[in-house]
């Protein structure tokens, strides 16, 4: 069996295009990323583990991972509803709302950060109603949750929308003609088909929220051990010239990011298979 490294083609430019691509990716992505791992490799295992498991770092993991998970969950529930509403119903202003869903993609994170803080501060548009009720959003972990929900919002909606769009209504009609109630149809016919896309959207929102910095640091309290997210901790260490510590924590986050990336790729492959089966 012949092992082809690449199939010869009449189209020119392969060497040039691939060469340039690999050079670019190597210089911009691979070499800098490897710098983080190489620097951390200078630490022995015990020192490394100690650096990344101090109480302050652990508290930041809890906040970053916990808030990201909850935010992705909220986005999955509401994002599903938004996607459903945009695909299945028509109502005035639907086009504008559809375009608006992408706002967190387009808005700079710093702008989002100060805007959310202004809204939820005690004298803010929503804060003025929430604080008397005892719900403090600004400068608390709850604020982090709100910011991360904002940032992940488009991911779930945009992942579910195309799948919902392509969903065959005949299956619903078949289920109804066989006597299923609307609820039964939804849970047993529609939901299983949308599930891969929903889970993928959740994973994407989670991954995005995990590393988020700009929109969070304004509304979070940034108090160590209480409301400090991991990216902020990395920057604090950098400002104190603790490059080794900062890089160690960065390596932990990078490893989690890579694992998430692999999971997301697998989820997308699962969704593709589901799609092609239908």
């Amino acid at each position, binding site marked *: 069996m012949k092992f*082809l490294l690449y*199939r010869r*083609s*009449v*189209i020119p430019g*392969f060497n040039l*295009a*691939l060469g*340039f*691509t690999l050079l*670019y*990716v190597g210089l*911009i*992505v691979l070499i800098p*990323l490897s710098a*983080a791992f190489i620097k951390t490799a200078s630490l022995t295992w015990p020192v490394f583990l100690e650096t990344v498991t101090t109480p302050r770092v652990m508290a930041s993991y809890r906040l970053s991972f916990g808030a990201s998970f909850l935010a992705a969950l909220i986005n999955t529930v*509401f994002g599903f*509803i*938004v996607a459903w*509403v945009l695909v*299945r*119903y028509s109502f005035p202003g639907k086009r504008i*709302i*559809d*375009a*608006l*869903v*992408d*706002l967190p*993609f*387009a*808005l*700079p*994170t*710093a*702008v989002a950060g100060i*805007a959310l803080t*202004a*809204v939820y501060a005690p004298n803010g*548009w929503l804060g003025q109603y929430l604080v008397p009720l005892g719900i403090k959003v600004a400068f608390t972990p709850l604020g982090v949750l709100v910011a991360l929900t*904002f940032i992940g*919002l488009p991911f779930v909606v945009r992942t579910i929308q195309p799948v919902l769009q392509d969903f065959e209504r005949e299956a619903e009609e078949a289920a109804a*003609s066989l006597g299923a109630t*609307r609820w039964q*149809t939804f849970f047993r016919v529609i939901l299983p088909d949308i599930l891969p896309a929903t889970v993928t959207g959740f994973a994407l929102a989670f991954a*995005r929220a*995990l*590393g988020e*910095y700009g929109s969070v640091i304004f509304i979070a309290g940034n108090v160590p051990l209480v409301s400090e997210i991991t*990216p*902020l901790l990395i*920057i604090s260490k*950098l400002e104190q010239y603790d490059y080794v510590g900062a*890089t160690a924590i*960065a390596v932990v*986050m*990078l490893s989690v*990011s890579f694992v998430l*990336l692999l999971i997301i*790729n697998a989820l997308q492959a699962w969704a593709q298979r589901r799609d092609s089966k239908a």
Partner: protein
Amino acid sequence: MAAIAMKLSDPAVARAQATTESPLVKWLLIAVAIAFLAVMLLIPVFAVFAEALRKGWQAYFSAFAEPDAWSAIQLTLTVAAIAVPANLVFGVAASWAIAKFEFRGKQVLLTLIDLPFSVSPVISGLIYVLIFGLQGWLGPWLNEHDIKIIFAVPGIVLATIFVTFPFVARELIPLMQAQGTEEEEAALVLGASGWQTFWHVTLPNIKWGLLYGVILCNARAMGEFGAVSVVSGHIRGMTNTLPLHVEILYNEYNFVAAFSVASLLALLALVTLVLKTSLEWKTRRELQELSPEQVQP
């Protein structure tokens, strides 16, 4: 029983009842969706403009009269002017290699191209500090030759390139894959050179996807905060981009100025959304036109 039988005997009614929710559920869902989006998206955007204009138009414009604001605008534009074309060339090259040829390791390359999306912006900046910073790999050499990368404009450009380079590639790759190689092969058979094929056959086909990718890339390049924050050193008037300038003003409790500058970025975001949506309709139509003719390999 008879009433139900009579209702179901009308096929249109029966079909509609079977496959839609009751109007109550429908409008409840719409209300929930709109309320969620209004709270999460609309109110913050309104807040930006409301806070910017809190002290009136005079105060709003005076925020831009400051020289620091102007150098921030200039720097942001410069960085975008370098990063976006560079990533454009890369995106075209990468999608040409991936879409028009078969080779091993394609999936690995695709994953590598997607990497910056999964890396935290802070870490994106950190890795460049590790290489070009004073204590970094090239630090001493750069210091000797008096070349400043970190805490200067080149570092900001590099970090921005890292964060934004997937955008064009990710747009073009599925588009060019869907378009296949027939047109290029036909052009070559008819005697066109490689570059002629590219300019006259490929480029017109991908122009909307290209524009879409460029718009997204540009929006992210101008708005990037975390990565630039790490490499810039926050030197006023020299290494502050617009988002960083917003942060500085905000941290100085100069809220009106901060929101005024932020409103400029918010306007950029809204323009991006408008352009993005209109291009989406164009590319969707283009992809739809292709799919009936596309032969699955």
